[in-house]
Protein backbone atom coordinates (compact mmCIF):
# COMPACT_ATOMS: atom_id res chain seq x y z
CA UNK A 1 0.00 0.00 0.00
CA UNK A 2 1.09 3.55 -0.66
CA UNK A 3 2.26 5.86 2.14
CA UNK A 4 -0.66 7.75 3.66
CA UNK A 5 -1.05 11.46 2.96
CA UNK A 6 -3.43 14.09 4.22
CA UNK A 7 -6.43 14.41 1.86
CA UNK A 8 -9.50 16.58 1.66
CA UNK A 9 -12.62 14.43 1.37
CA UNK A 10 -16.03 15.78 0.33
CA UNK A 11 -19.06 13.53 0.75
CA UNK A 12 -22.50 13.59 -0.83
CA UNK A 13 -25.97 12.26 -0.10
CA UNK A 14 -26.33 10.72 -3.56
CA UNK A 15 -24.27 9.45 -6.45
CA UNK A 16 -26.03 12.05 -8.59
CA UNK A 17 -24.61 14.83 -6.40
CA UNK A 18 -21.16 13.23 -6.63
CA UNK A 19 -21.46 13.14 -10.39
CA UNK A 20 -22.54 16.78 -10.43
CA UNK A 21 -19.36 17.55 -8.46
CA UNK A 22 -17.17 15.64 -10.90
CA UNK A 23 -18.85 17.20 -13.93
CA UNK A 24 -18.50 20.74 -12.60
CA UNK A 25 -14.92 20.28 -11.34
CA UNK A 26 -13.78 18.68 -14.60
CA UNK A 27 -15.29 21.51 -16.64
CA UNK A 28 -13.71 24.17 -14.40
CA UNK A 29 -10.32 22.47 -14.01
CA UNK A 30 -10.73 22.09 -10.25
CA UNK A 31 -8.47 19.55 -8.47
CA UNK A 32 -9.54 16.12 -7.26
CA UNK A 33 -11.22 12.88 -8.31
CA UNK A 34 -13.91 10.47 -7.15
CA UNK A 35 -12.84 7.68 -4.77
CA UNK A 36 -14.70 5.05 -2.73
CA UNK A 37 -16.05 6.53 0.50
CA UNK A 38 -13.31 6.01 3.18
CA UNK A 39 -14.29 3.80 6.12
CA UNK A 40 -13.27 6.53 8.57
CA UNK A 41 -16.39 8.39 7.43
CA UNK A 42 -18.76 5.50 6.94
CA UNK A 43 -18.64 1.73 6.77
CA UNK A 44 -21.15 1.95 3.95
CA UNK A 45 -20.53 2.06 0.26
CA UNK A 46 -20.63 5.18 -1.85
CA UNK A 47 -18.24 7.66 -3.37
CA UNK A 48 -16.50 10.84 -2.30
CA UNK A 49 -14.43 13.63 -3.84
CA UNK A 50 -10.76 13.50 -2.89
CA UNK A 51 -8.49 16.52 -3.35
CA UNK A 52 -5.34 18.04 -1.81
CA UNK A 53 -6.09 19.68 1.55
CA UNK A 54 -4.57 22.91 0.24
CA UNK A 55 -7.49 23.17 -2.19
CA UNK A 56 -10.14 23.27 0.57
CA UNK A 57 -10.90 27.00 0.47
CA UNK A 58 -10.97 27.00 -3.33
CA UNK A 59 -13.28 23.98 -3.44
CA UNK A 60 -15.59 25.25 -0.70
CA UNK A 61 -16.08 28.49 -2.60
CA UNK A 62 -16.60 26.57 -5.84
CA UNK A 63 -19.19 24.20 -4.33
CA UNK A 64 -21.06 27.12 -2.79
CA UNK A 65 -20.99 29.07 -6.05
CA UNK A 66 -22.29 26.10 -8.09
CA UNK A 67 -24.85 25.09 -5.43
CA UNK A 68 -23.56 21.50 -5.41
CA UNK A 69 -25.18 19.69 -2.45
CA UNK A 70 -22.13 18.49 -0.49
CA UNK A 71 -22.85 16.53 2.71
CA UNK A 72 -19.61 16.78 4.66
CA UNK A 73 -16.00 18.02 4.54
CA UNK A 74 -13.14 16.01 6.10
CA UNK A 75 -9.36 15.99 6.24
CA UNK A 76 -8.07 12.42 6.55
CA UNK A 77 -4.82 10.49 6.31
CA UNK A 78 -5.40 8.20 3.34
Amino acid at each position, binding site marked *: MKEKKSKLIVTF*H*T*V*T*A*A*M*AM*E*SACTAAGMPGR*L*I*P*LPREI*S*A*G*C*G*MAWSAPVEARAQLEAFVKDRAI*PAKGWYELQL
Partner: protein
Amino acid sequence: MIYLDNAATTLKKPDCVVQAVTHALTSMGNSARGTHDSALQSARSVFQARSSIAKLFNAPGPERVAFTKNSTEALNLAICGLFNQGDHVITTDLEHNSVLRPLYRLESEGIITLSVVPADKTGRVDYDDFTRLLCGQTRGIVCTHASNLTGNTLDLHRIGQIARAHNLFLVVDASQSAGVLDIDMEQMGISVLCFTGHKSLMGPQGTGGLCVARDVDLRPLQVGGSGTESFSPTHPTEMPTRLEAGTLNGHGIAGLGAGVDFILETGVERIRRHEIALAKRFYDGVTNLPGITVYGDFSSWERTAVVALNIGDYDSGAVSDALWEDYAIATRPGAHCAPRLHNALGTAEQGAVRFSFCWFNTEEEVDTAISALRELAQ
Protein backbone atom coordinates in the same frame (compact mmCIF):
# COMPACT_ATOMS: atom_id res chain seq x y z
CA MET B 1 -41.40 -2.80 -44.66
CA ILE B 2 -43.03 0.54 -43.98
CA TYR B 3 -43.19 1.00 -40.22
CA LEU B 4 -46.09 3.22 -39.13
CA ASP B 5 -46.46 1.98 -35.56
CA ASN B 6 -44.24 4.57 -33.93
CA ALA B 7 -46.76 5.44 -31.22
CA ALA B 8 -46.20 1.92 -29.89
CA THR B 9 -42.41 1.96 -30.22
CA THR B 10 -40.12 3.79 -32.60
CA LEU B 11 -38.36 1.06 -34.58
CA LYS B 12 -35.73 3.13 -36.35
CA LYS B 13 -33.38 4.78 -33.85
CA PRO B 14 -30.69 7.38 -34.54
CA ASP B 15 -27.27 5.81 -35.11
CA CYS B 16 -25.98 7.53 -31.98
CA VAL B 17 -28.48 5.54 -29.88
CA VAL B 18 -27.30 2.22 -31.29
CA GLN B 19 -23.68 3.25 -30.77
CA ALA B 20 -24.33 4.41 -27.21
CA VAL B 21 -25.99 1.13 -26.22
CA THR B 22 -23.24 -0.91 -27.91
CA HIS B 23 -20.57 1.13 -26.15
CA ALA B 24 -22.37 0.74 -22.83
CA LEU B 25 -22.73 -3.02 -23.22
CA THR B 26 -19.05 -3.40 -23.89
CA SER B 27 -17.57 -0.92 -21.45
CA MET B 28 -19.85 0.11 -18.59
CA GLY B 29 -20.06 -1.31 -15.09
CA ASN B 30 -22.58 -0.47 -12.37
CA SER B 31 -23.30 3.23 -12.17
CA ALA B 32 -23.37 3.64 -8.40
CA ARG B 33 -21.30 0.83 -7.00
CA GLY B 34 -17.66 1.85 -7.19
CA THR B 35 -15.16 4.34 -8.54
CA HIS B 36 -13.16 2.28 -11.00
CA ASP B 37 -13.27 3.48 -14.57
CA SER B 38 -16.07 1.17 -15.76
CA ALA B 39 -18.34 2.16 -12.88
CA LEU B 40 -17.61 5.85 -13.34
CA GLN B 41 -18.22 5.64 -17.09
CA SER B 42 -21.67 4.33 -16.31
CA ALA B 43 -22.31 6.91 -13.58
CA ARG B 44 -21.25 9.69 -15.95
CA SER B 45 -23.53 8.34 -18.67
CA VAL B 46 -26.51 8.18 -16.29
CA PHE B 47 -25.79 11.69 -14.99
CA GLN B 48 -25.52 13.01 -18.55
CA ALA B 49 -28.87 11.43 -19.40
CA ARG B 50 -30.48 13.02 -16.32
CA SER B 51 -29.03 16.40 -17.29
CA SER B 52 -30.25 16.16 -20.90
CA ILE B 53 -33.75 15.09 -19.81
CA ALA B 54 -33.93 17.96 -17.30
CA LYS B 55 -32.95 20.35 -20.09
CA LEU B 56 -35.51 18.95 -22.55
CA PHE B 57 -38.41 19.32 -20.09
CA ASN B 58 -37.11 22.30 -18.12
CA ALA B 59 -37.15 20.14 -14.99
CA PRO B 60 -35.59 21.63 -11.83
CA GLY B 61 -32.30 19.73 -12.26
CA PRO B 62 -30.72 16.34 -12.91
CA GLU B 63 -31.30 15.26 -9.31
CA ARG B 64 -35.07 15.58 -9.87
CA VAL B 65 -35.03 13.05 -12.73
CA ALA B 66 -35.56 9.44 -11.60
CA PHE B 67 -35.40 6.47 -13.96
CA THR B 68 -37.95 3.67 -14.25
CA LYS B 69 -38.48 0.93 -16.79
CA ASN B 70 -41.32 2.74 -18.59
CA SER B 71 -44.15 5.26 -18.25
CA THR B 72 -46.40 2.76 -16.52
CA GLU B 73 -43.96 2.32 -13.67
CA ALA B 74 -43.43 6.09 -13.48
CA LEU B 75 -47.18 6.74 -13.36
CA ASN B 76 -47.69 4.09 -10.67
CA LEU B 77 -44.92 5.75 -8.66
CA ALA B 78 -46.46 9.18 -9.10
CA ILE B 79 -50.07 8.20 -8.44
CA CYS B 80 -49.45 5.83 -5.54
CA GLY B 81 -46.72 8.02 -4.08
CA LEU B 82 -48.63 11.26 -4.11
CA PHE B 83 -52.21 10.68 -3.03
CA ASN B 84 -53.49 9.89 0.45
CA GLN B 85 -56.58 8.53 2.14
CA GLY B 86 -59.58 10.73 1.37
CA ASP B 87 -58.07 12.59 -1.58
CA HIS B 88 -60.17 13.38 -4.64
CA VAL B 89 -58.46 13.14 -8.04
CA ILE B 90 -59.56 14.34 -11.48
CA THR B 91 -58.59 12.58 -14.71
CA THR B 92 -59.96 12.47 -18.27
CA ASP B 93 -61.54 10.14 -20.80
CA LEU B 94 -58.42 10.42 -22.97
CA GLU B 95 -56.27 8.37 -20.64
CA HIS B 96 -54.35 5.18 -21.28
CA ASN B 97 -54.75 2.30 -18.84
CA SER B 98 -51.35 3.20 -17.39
CA VAL B 99 -53.14 6.18 -15.83
CA LEU B 100 -56.59 4.69 -15.37
CA ARG B 101 -55.72 1.41 -13.70
CA PRO B 102 -53.55 2.83 -10.89
CA LEU B 103 -56.31 5.38 -10.23
CA TYR B 104 -59.07 2.72 -10.36
CA ARG B 105 -57.10 0.58 -7.94
CA LEU B 106 -56.74 3.40 -5.40
CA GLU B 107 -60.44 4.11 -5.86
CA SER B 108 -61.46 0.47 -5.37
CA GLU B 109 -59.31 0.25 -2.24
CA GLY B 110 -61.24 3.20 -0.83
CA ILE B 111 -58.18 5.45 -0.74
CA ILE B 112 -59.26 8.10 -3.27
CA THR B 113 -62.40 9.25 -5.01
CA LEU B 114 -62.16 9.83 -8.73
CA SER B 115 -63.87 12.10 -11.24
CA VAL B 116 -63.39 11.91 -15.00
CA VAL B 117 -63.60 14.83 -17.45
CA PRO B 118 -65.64 13.42 -20.34
CA ALA B 119 -64.63 13.51 -24.00
CA ASP B 120 -67.11 14.17 -26.81
CA LYS B 121 -67.41 11.98 -29.90
CA THR B 122 -64.33 13.61 -31.46
CA GLY B 123 -62.29 13.16 -28.29
CA ARG B 124 -62.40 16.81 -27.19
CA VAL B 125 -62.82 17.90 -23.57
CA ASP B 126 -64.48 20.98 -22.09
CA TYR B 127 -61.81 22.59 -19.88
CA ASP B 128 -64.48 24.12 -17.64
CA ASP B 129 -65.26 20.55 -16.54
CA PHE B 130 -61.98 20.45 -14.58
CA THR B 131 -63.23 23.33 -12.46
CA ARG B 132 -66.80 21.98 -12.26
CA LEU B 133 -65.51 18.68 -10.85
CA LEU B 134 -63.51 20.29 -8.03
CA CYS B 135 -64.51 19.61 -4.45
CA GLY B 136 -62.99 20.33 -1.06
CA GLN B 137 -60.94 17.12 -1.09
CA THR B 138 -59.53 17.54 -4.60
CA ARG B 139 -55.79 17.07 -4.41
CA GLY B 140 -54.66 16.55 -7.97
CA ILE B 141 -55.20 16.22 -11.71
CA VAL B 142 -53.69 13.28 -13.58
CA CYS B 143 -53.85 13.57 -17.35
CA THR B 144 -52.16 12.75 -20.60
CA HIS B 145 -50.48 15.36 -22.79
CA ALA B 146 -51.52 13.61 -26.01
CA SER B 147 -53.94 10.77 -26.69
CA ASN B 148 -52.29 7.59 -27.95
CA LEU B 149 -55.47 6.84 -29.91
CA THR B 150 -56.27 10.11 -31.70
CA GLY B 151 -53.12 12.20 -31.30
CA ASN B 152 -55.18 15.06 -29.88
CA THR B 153 -53.52 17.04 -27.11
CA LEU B 154 -54.66 18.50 -23.85
CA ASP B 155 -53.71 22.13 -23.23
CA LEU B 156 -51.28 21.74 -20.33
CA HIS B 157 -50.86 25.49 -19.92
CA ARG B 158 -54.58 25.77 -19.28
CA ILE B 159 -54.79 22.72 -17.01
CA GLY B 160 -51.68 23.89 -15.17
CA GLN B 161 -53.34 27.24 -14.49
CA ILE B 162 -56.34 25.45 -13.00
CA ALA B 163 -54.05 23.27 -10.86
CA ARG B 164 -52.09 26.31 -9.63
CA ALA B 165 -55.24 28.30 -8.88
CA HIS B 166 -56.59 25.51 -6.68
CA ASN B 167 -53.29 24.30 -5.20
CA LEU B 168 -53.48 20.89 -6.88
CA PHE B 169 -50.79 18.48 -7.97
CA LEU B 170 -50.58 18.05 -11.74
CA VAL B 171 -49.30 14.65 -12.90
CA VAL B 172 -48.73 14.42 -16.67
CA ASP B 173 -48.40 11.32 -18.84
CA ALA B 174 -46.02 12.44 -21.61
CA SER B 175 -45.68 8.99 -23.21
CA GLN B 176 -46.86 10.25 -26.60
CA SER B 177 -45.53 13.80 -26.51
CA ALA B 178 -42.03 13.75 -25.00
CA GLY B 179 -39.60 14.78 -27.71
CA VAL B 180 -42.20 15.98 -30.23
CA LEU B 181 -44.17 18.63 -28.32
CA ASP B 182 -42.82 21.43 -26.17
CA ILE B 183 -42.92 20.54 -22.50
CA ASP B 184 -41.87 23.08 -19.87
CA MET B 185 -42.48 21.77 -16.37
CA GLU B 186 -42.07 25.14 -14.72
CA GLN B 187 -44.22 27.16 -17.14
CA MET B 188 -46.92 24.50 -17.26
CA GLY B 189 -46.94 24.01 -13.50
CA ILE B 190 -46.32 20.26 -13.74
CA SER B 191 -45.70 18.49 -10.42
CA VAL B 192 -44.65 15.13 -11.88
CA LEU B 193 -43.89 14.45 -15.55
CA CYS B 194 -43.87 10.77 -16.55
CA PHE B 195 -42.15 9.64 -19.74
CA THR B 196 -41.10 6.51 -21.56
CA GLY B 197 -37.85 6.13 -23.47
CA HIS B 198 -38.77 3.85 -26.36
CA LYS B 199 -41.27 5.99 -28.26
CA SER B 200 -40.59 9.56 -29.38
CA LEU B 201 -37.49 9.91 -27.17
CA MET B 202 -35.95 7.33 -29.57
CA GLY B 203 -34.32 5.25 -26.84
CA PRO B 204 -34.45 1.53 -26.01
CA GLN B 205 -37.38 -0.31 -24.43
CA GLY B 206 -37.00 -0.74 -20.68
CA THR B 207 -36.22 2.93 -20.14
CA GLY B 208 -38.41 5.71 -18.81
CA GLY B 209 -38.73 7.90 -15.79
CA LEU B 210 -40.28 10.83 -14.04
CA CYS B 211 -39.30 14.42 -13.40
CA VAL B 212 -40.41 15.67 -10.01
CA ALA B 213 -40.92 19.34 -9.13
CA ARG B 214 -38.79 20.61 -6.27
CA ASP B 215 -41.64 21.01 -3.81
CA VAL B 216 -43.09 17.52 -4.41
CA ASP B 217 -42.14 14.44 -2.34
CA LEU B 218 -43.19 11.02 -3.62
CA ARG B 219 -43.39 7.90 -1.45
CA PRO B 220 -41.22 5.24 -3.13
CA LEU B 221 -42.84 2.01 -4.30
CA GLN B 222 -39.63 0.04 -3.82
CA VAL B 223 -36.70 0.21 -1.41
CA GLY B 224 -33.44 -1.72 -1.44
CA GLY B 225 -29.93 -1.32 -2.76
CA SER B 226 -28.88 2.28 -3.19
CA GLY B 227 -25.09 2.31 -3.35
CA THR B 228 -25.02 4.56 -0.27
CA GLU B 229 -25.83 4.31 3.46
CA SER B 230 -25.43 0.51 3.44
CA PHE B 231 -25.91 0.10 7.19
CA SER B 232 -29.03 2.22 7.41
CA PRO B 233 -32.17 0.10 7.77
CA THR B 234 -34.07 2.59 5.68
CA HIS B 235 -33.70 3.65 2.06
CA PRO B 236 -32.12 7.10 1.45
CA THR B 237 -34.70 9.88 1.15
CA GLU B 238 -32.77 12.15 -1.20
CA MET B 239 -33.72 12.41 -4.86
CA PRO B 240 -33.21 10.63 -7.17
CA THR B 241 -31.98 7.71 -5.01
CA ARG B 242 -35.29 7.94 -3.11
CA LEU B 243 -37.13 6.55 -6.13
CA GLU B 244 -34.42 4.28 -7.57
CA ALA B 245 -33.90 1.03 -5.63
CA GLY B 246 -31.53 -1.48 -7.20
CA THR B 247 -29.21 -1.32 -10.17
CA LEU B 248 -30.36 1.02 -12.91
CA ASN B 249 -30.69 -0.03 -16.55
CA GLY B 250 -27.43 1.73 -17.33
CA HIS B 251 -27.08 0.20 -20.78
CA GLY B 252 -30.57 1.31 -21.78
CA ILE B 253 -30.20 4.72 -20.16
CA ALA B 254 -27.05 5.31 -22.22
CA GLY B 255 -29.22 4.87 -25.33
CA LEU B 256 -32.01 7.02 -23.91
CA GLY B 257 -29.52 9.80 -23.16
CA ALA B 258 -28.22 9.60 -26.73
CA GLY B 259 -31.79 9.78 -28.05
CA VAL B 260 -32.56 12.87 -25.98
CA ASP B 261 -29.29 14.50 -27.09
CA PHE B 262 -30.26 13.76 -30.71
CA ILE B 263 -33.60 15.52 -30.11
CA LEU B 264 -31.94 18.50 -28.42
CA GLU B 265 -29.52 18.85 -31.34
CA THR B 266 -32.19 18.36 -34.02
CA GLY B 267 -34.81 20.50 -32.28
CA VAL B 268 -38.24 19.52 -30.98
CA GLU B 269 -39.99 21.96 -33.29
CA ARG B 270 -38.16 20.65 -36.38
CA ILE B 271 -39.10 17.08 -35.49
CA ARG B 272 -42.71 18.08 -34.81
CA ARG B 273 -43.02 19.93 -38.13
CA HIS B 274 -41.68 16.95 -40.08
CA GLU B 275 -43.93 14.42 -38.37
CA ILE B 276 -47.03 16.64 -38.60
CA ALA B 277 -46.40 17.29 -42.31
CA LEU B 278 -46.44 13.52 -42.85
CA ALA B 279 -49.57 13.04 -40.74
CA LYS B 280 -51.35 15.86 -42.58
CA ARG B 281 -50.35 14.43 -45.98
CA PHE B 282 -51.74 11.07 -44.88
CA TYR B 283 -54.93 12.57 -43.43
CA ASP B 284 -55.57 14.61 -46.58
CA GLY B 285 -55.00 11.51 -48.69
CA VAL B 286 -57.37 9.20 -46.85
CA THR B 287 -60.07 11.26 -45.17
CA ASN B 288 -62.30 11.45 -48.25
CA LEU B 289 -61.79 7.88 -49.44
CA PRO B 290 -65.11 6.00 -49.61
CA GLY B 291 -65.87 4.02 -46.46
CA ILE B 292 -63.03 5.54 -44.41
CA THR B 293 -63.82 7.00 -40.98
CA VAL B 294 -61.04 8.97 -39.31
CA TYR B 295 -61.29 9.51 -35.53
CA GLY B 296 -60.39 12.52 -33.45
CA ASP B 297 -60.33 16.29 -33.81
CA PHE B 298 -58.45 17.53 -36.89
CA SER B 299 -59.54 21.17 -36.64
CA SER B 300 -56.01 21.97 -35.44
CA TRP B 301 -52.59 20.47 -36.12
CA GLU B 302 -51.45 21.14 -32.55
CA ARG B 303 -51.34 17.38 -32.07
CA THR B 304 -49.09 14.38 -32.46
CA ALA B 305 -48.59 12.52 -35.73
CA VAL B 306 -51.28 9.89 -35.16
CA VAL B 307 -54.19 9.09 -37.48
CA ALA B 308 -56.64 6.37 -36.39
CA LEU B 309 -59.28 5.11 -38.80
CA ASN B 310 -61.55 2.30 -39.87
CA ILE B 311 -62.80 1.04 -43.24
CA GLY B 312 -66.57 0.55 -43.20
CA ASP B 313 -67.44 -1.94 -40.50
CA TYR B 314 -64.44 -4.18 -41.13
CA ASP B 315 -62.64 -5.49 -38.07
CA SER B 316 -59.68 -3.18 -37.49
CA GLY B 317 -57.53 -6.28 -36.93
CA ALA B 318 -58.41 -7.61 -40.37
CA VAL B 319 -57.53 -4.29 -42.01
CA SER B 320 -54.21 -4.07 -40.16
CA ASP B 321 -53.44 -7.65 -41.10
CA ALA B 322 -54.19 -6.97 -44.77
CA LEU B 323 -51.93 -3.91 -44.67
CA TRP B 324 -49.14 -6.09 -43.34
CA GLU B 325 -49.68 -9.20 -45.46
CA ASP B 326 -50.35 -7.46 -48.78
CA TYR B 327 -48.36 -4.22 -48.47
CA ALA B 328 -45.79 -4.79 -45.68
CA ILE B 329 -47.16 -1.78 -43.81
CA ALA B 330 -46.98 -2.09 -40.01
CA THR B 331 -49.85 -0.50 -38.05
CA ARG B 332 -51.63 -1.16 -34.78
CA PRO B 333 -55.25 -2.34 -34.72
CA GLY B 334 -57.79 -3.12 -32.01
CA ALA B 335 -58.24 -1.41 -28.69
CA HIS B 336 -55.38 0.84 -27.72
CA CYS B 337 -55.45 0.54 -23.92
CA ALA B 338 -57.69 3.64 -23.92
CA PRO B 339 -61.12 2.16 -23.11
CA ARG B 340 -62.90 5.38 -22.16
CA LEU B 341 -61.86 7.15 -25.35
CA HIS B 342 -62.91 4.18 -27.48
CA ASN B 343 -66.31 4.44 -25.82
CA ALA B 344 -66.48 8.17 -26.54
CA LEU B 345 -65.47 7.68 -30.18
CA GLY B 346 -67.83 4.72 -30.65
CA THR B 347 -65.03 2.28 -31.51
CA ALA B 348 -65.22 -0.02 -28.49
CA GLU B 349 -66.29 -2.97 -30.62
CA GLN B 350 -64.45 -2.31 -33.87
CA GLY B 351 -61.24 -0.87 -32.46
CA ALA B 352 -59.27 1.31 -34.86
CA VAL B 353 -56.27 1.06 -37.17
CA ARG B 354 -53.65 3.49 -35.94
CA PHE B 355 -51.05 5.00 -38.26
CA SER B 356 -48.30 6.83 -36.38
CA PHE B 357 -45.39 8.64 -37.99
CA CYS B 358 -41.87 9.44 -36.84
CA TRP B 359 -38.83 11.53 -37.75
CA PHE B 360 -37.49 8.76 -40.02
CA ASN B 361 -40.65 8.26 -42.11
CA THR B 362 -40.84 9.73 -45.62
CA GLU B 363 -43.48 11.20 -47.94
CA GLU B 364 -43.02 8.18 -50.23
CA GLU B 365 -43.96 5.84 -47.38
CA VAL B 366 -47.05 7.95 -46.64
CA ASP B 367 -48.10 7.86 -50.30
CA THR B 368 -47.71 4.08 -50.39
CA ALA B 369 -49.93 3.78 -47.31
CA ILE B 370 -52.56 6.03 -48.92
CA SER B 371 -52.54 3.90 -52.08
CA ALA B 372 -52.90 0.73 -50.01
CA LEU B 373 -55.89 2.11 -48.15
CA ARG B 374 -57.45 3.29 -51.41
CA GLU B 375 -57.26 -0.27 -52.74
CA LEU B 376 -58.53 -1.84 -49.52
CA ALA B 377 -61.44 0.60 -49.31
CA GLN B 378 -62.70 -0.29 -52.80
